């Protein structure tokens, strides 16, 4: 009996051995190995990003330019979507049957139990149509979110658009806060002010069950963060003026930029042809984008800041005059003969006996001679060296007007344009191998000059201010009662003293009163407009029409540049547009309906 009784120890030993093995194994998986805890978290805790409301954008009068509109994604959970009437679904969504099957397959491939987007960005109307029928489609549900909406369909180029962040941006450490699928500003204000508009994302930790169904917040939301809405922006744009500008430019190509001289605030920013910014918010974003991109009129080209290769034409004579006055090359009373052997003059007129008359008549030989005196001041006995020294001196002063440099507007992709420099000619012709006869076309705003429409408008603002400008900007306030960025509050003085502006301004007034800019005249309304026409030579086709102006002459409220491509003389198309814009802005109405009809008729495109 005894040896059998000892077997009780064997049996108890087996019991204790198993218990000990279990306790050790448990110690390993519960305490030592942390991978199970991580697995449990990814299992049951889902972080849900709380998207903040993107900041809204208002115009200067408080009208909404950009808002957030609800869009609806049709989601599907393949596991629950069984025995779906694909034929009816196809009719509801207006999709080909294969497409419906394809999308179902894609959703299943993504996950059998997790929801994925079956159809993105349904409009409110589509949503309303589908919603009532959804009850017959188990596994399908609507997920609401917001997209950008543009109630006025205006200002597309300046506003820009948002789209899903690109894979390349995601790899960039500068975008470390973004995740795949996030929306980000891609151009315009949306891009420039992304950091203010985007707000701060919040995260909610939710517990989910095995089927991904939410089962409440994790630890009662102790780790959750709230989302903070993006800052609203107040634009400098006057929506009424903007829309009027787009109305006038509809069907044309070119730019209209209007600036409030005292503040540098951009009042209107028209890039024609333009498009409805809403095209980039719907489900057809990709299709619309590609269509616009391949369009021959280059609709996507943001002309006011990017059209930098075109010479300014005659409007540049104003700058020539100002620099020459400052350098003492001429006085307001200097006269030059209209010597057509030097350079042709487009208008037949008497010899200008003073600067104002020269401006009024846009006399080419006059400015030929002014610029020659400017660059050949006799600082060197060598003509070549003298021209080089003179051009360098001239360039230094001309760039203080914002030509040839990026002005620094709060929009992306601004181009700096071209201002001829000695180095540039040295490169082309060789040092000491070029002289005034090589570069004389600069005197009348042709040749090696490239000025953006924004720079033209800024030039007008500078003259209106009699010698300084404030960097043009399109956002006046970050947050509803905020301030513009500090760089948009300081004056940039030109190299030309204020007193030299008077004869130039007088000449510009004469241009509108009795010169080439009469189509911009508002004399009947008692508003004295100062302007200058220009025609930019275009080697590819018909010349581009230019008209720059500001008004009223004393205490100017608006400076404007109008650039119409392939429209010939500035007087015929650009001047009337500028005049109408000025009237619209200053009087809030348009009295010259005939002029408006003329502009809209586009007949100027057919005049040679």
């Amino acid at each position, binding site marked *: 009996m005894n040896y059998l009784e000892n077997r009780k120890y064997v049996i108890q030993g087996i*019991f204790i051995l198993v218990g000990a093995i279990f306790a050790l194994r448990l110690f390993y998986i519960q305490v030592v190995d942390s991978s199970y*805890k991580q697995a449990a978290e990814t*299992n*049951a805790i889902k972080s849900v990003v709380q998207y903040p409301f993107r900041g809204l954008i208002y115009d200067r009068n408080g009208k909404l330019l950009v808002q957030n509109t609800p869009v609806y994604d049709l989601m599907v959970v393949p596991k629950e979507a069984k025995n779906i009437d694909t034929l009816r679904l196809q009719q509801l969504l207006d999709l080909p049957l294969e497409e419906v099957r394809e999308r179902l397959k894609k959703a299943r491939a993504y996950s059998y139990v997790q929801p994925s987007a079956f159809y993105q960005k349904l409009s409110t109307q589509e949503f309303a149509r589908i919603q009532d029928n959804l009850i017959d489609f188990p596994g399908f549900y609507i997920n609401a979110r917001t997209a950008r909406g543009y109630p006025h369909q205006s200002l597309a180029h300046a506003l820009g658009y948002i789209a899903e962040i690109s894979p390349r941006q995601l790899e960039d450490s500068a975008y470390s806060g973004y995740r795949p699928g996030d929306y980000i500003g891609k151009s315009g204000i949306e891009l420039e002010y992304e950091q203010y508009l985007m707000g701060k994302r919040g995260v909610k930790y939710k517990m989910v069950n*095995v089927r991904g169904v939410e089962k409440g917040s994790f630890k009662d939301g102790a780790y959750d963060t709230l989302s903070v809405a993006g800052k609203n922006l107040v634009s400098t744009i006057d929506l009424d003026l903007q829309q009027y500008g787009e109305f006038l430019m509809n069907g044309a190509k070119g730019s209209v930029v209007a600036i409030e001289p005292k503040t540098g605030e951009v009042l209107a920013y028209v890039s024609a042809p333009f498009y409805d910014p809403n095209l980039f918010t719907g489900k057809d974003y990709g299709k619309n984008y590609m269509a616009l991109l391949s369009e021959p009129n280059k609709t996507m080209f943001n002309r006011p800041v990017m059209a930098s290769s075109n010479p300014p034409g005659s409007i540049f004579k104003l700058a020539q005059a100002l620099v020459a006055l400052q350098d003492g090359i001429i006085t307001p009373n200097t006269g030059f003969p209209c010597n057509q052997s030097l350079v042709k003059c487009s208008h037949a007129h008497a010899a200008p006996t003073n600067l104002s008359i020269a401006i009024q008549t846009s006399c080419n030989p006059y400015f030929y001679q002014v610029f020659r005196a400017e660059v050949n001041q006799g600082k060197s006995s060598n003509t070549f060296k003298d021209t080089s020294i003179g051009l360098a001196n001239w360039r230094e002063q001309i760039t203080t007007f914002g030509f040839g440099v990026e002005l620094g507007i709060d929009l992306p992709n601004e181009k700096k344009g071209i201002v001829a420099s000695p180095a540039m000619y040295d490169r082309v012709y060789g040092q000491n191998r070029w002289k005034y006869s090589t570069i004389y076309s600069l005197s009348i705003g042709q040749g090696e000059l490239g000025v953006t429409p924004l720079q033209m408008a800024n030039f007008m603002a500078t003259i209106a201010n009699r010698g300084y400008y404030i960097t043009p900007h399109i956002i006046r306030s970050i947050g509803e009662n905020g301030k513009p960025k500090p760089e948009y509050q300081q004056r940039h003085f030109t190299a030309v003293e204020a007193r030299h502006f008077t004869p130039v301004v007088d000449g510009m007034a004469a241009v509108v009163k009795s010169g080439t800019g009469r189509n911009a005249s508002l004399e009947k309304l008692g508003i004295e407009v100062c302007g200058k026409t220009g025609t930019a030579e275009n080697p590819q086709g018909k010349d581009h029409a230019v008209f720059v102006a500001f008004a009223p002459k004393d205490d100017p409220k608006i400076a404007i540049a109008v650039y119409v491509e392939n429209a010939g003389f500035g007087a015929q198309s650009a001047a009337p547009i500028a005049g109408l814009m000025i009237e619209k802005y200053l009087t809030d109405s348009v009295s010259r309906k005939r002029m408006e009809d003329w502009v809209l008729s586009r007949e100027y495109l057919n005049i040679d």
Partner: protein
Amino acid sequence: MGVEQKILGSSRIGMSATPGRHASGSHMLQNIDWVTILLYFLLVGLGWMNIYAAVYSPDNVVNIMSFDINSGKQLVWIAASLILIIVLLVVDYKVYEHLAYPIYGAIILLLLVTLAVAKPIAGSRSWLDLGGGIRLQPAELAKFATALAASKFLSTVNLRQQNFADQMKLAAITLLPPAIIILQNETGSALVFAAFILAYFREGISPLILIIGGSVAAVFILTLLVPKLYLILAITVLLALATWLDYRLLRRYKTMMALWVLVVGMIFSVDFFVNNVLQPHQQNRIKALINPEADPLGFGWNVTQSKIAIGSGGFWGKGFLEGTQTKFDFVPEQSTDFIFCTIGEEQGWVGSTVLIGLFMFLMIRVVMVAERQKSVFGRAYGYCVASIIFFHFLVNVGMTIGLAPVVGIPLPFFSYGGSSLWSFTILLFILIAIDANRSQDLAR
């Protein structure tokens, strides 16, 4: 005195108000093993709370007593168990020995009836519908019936004499119920009968059976885990080493050769057994044990999720009702077979180890109780009880932590379910009843 007591005892049912009855009653209360009873109620109570935790849903909190959820229903089973316990303790303890064979026979009959009339539930024809929504699984009752019959048989023969006919009879008693149960497609419940080998070992069968059984299991598992070539090399080296240590083995080279051929043959037959004999779901359970990561969403799901739930509990656990894995349906069968996951996740290593300790305590206590029985019947029965509890504990906890294949058998006293709770209550309290009256067997 002793004789008188025996006579009184045996005729107690028919007689009221005899001195013997008084003596018996007071004896019972004096001798009843309160430690085991305390452990029983501790396990049942903890089980009940964890069943509640397993079905608890934070966004739809239901009272623990509600009959809509498993914990409420379990309360009914527990209450019924109390009645069962009183009946088991009041009935003359001798009935269990005297009626061991009839009870066994009745249960065999019930198993056969079930096999014949039961409608398949999840492929298993083991549930007997009693009407009124109450179902009974006779396979659960077969455990205590077989324990009674085997103990009765052991009390009449002497196993040590290695009488072949007796051994075959014992094997027949033990294997008849699992044979029927396998036909019912309840392989898990049938496996439990392997536990009897421990009890028989105590009662005198050759340790070789235990050793051979253990070795076969070891070779089987190793074949699944280790490449065959390594195993063959290992067994060759092992035999060579043994021969080198003891030259006398050289003289028995034929036995050695036979052993080698046997083991190598078994190594090669395991594949055949797994792939051709086992059913696909059984094959998957074995694959899941070896490498659950191979298909974590398929056959590895239960084991993977179970380990994640337990592993995420950490040292102290997440706290009662704070578990996430067991709450949100990641672990299947949470309140029944995988109830241990709830403890592991919510009570951590500390709680799990305490529970393991409670089971150890109970099993060793049962062995102690068995050892103090004066009758072979009582002692053998006690060991059967300990062995059955042990086997359930081994496989149930083992599968949740990836040490045993997934076999659908419950954790004793703990898992949700009336059949299981009653079967273990009957099993344990028959022993307690026998033990409480052990002094009356003094004279036998």
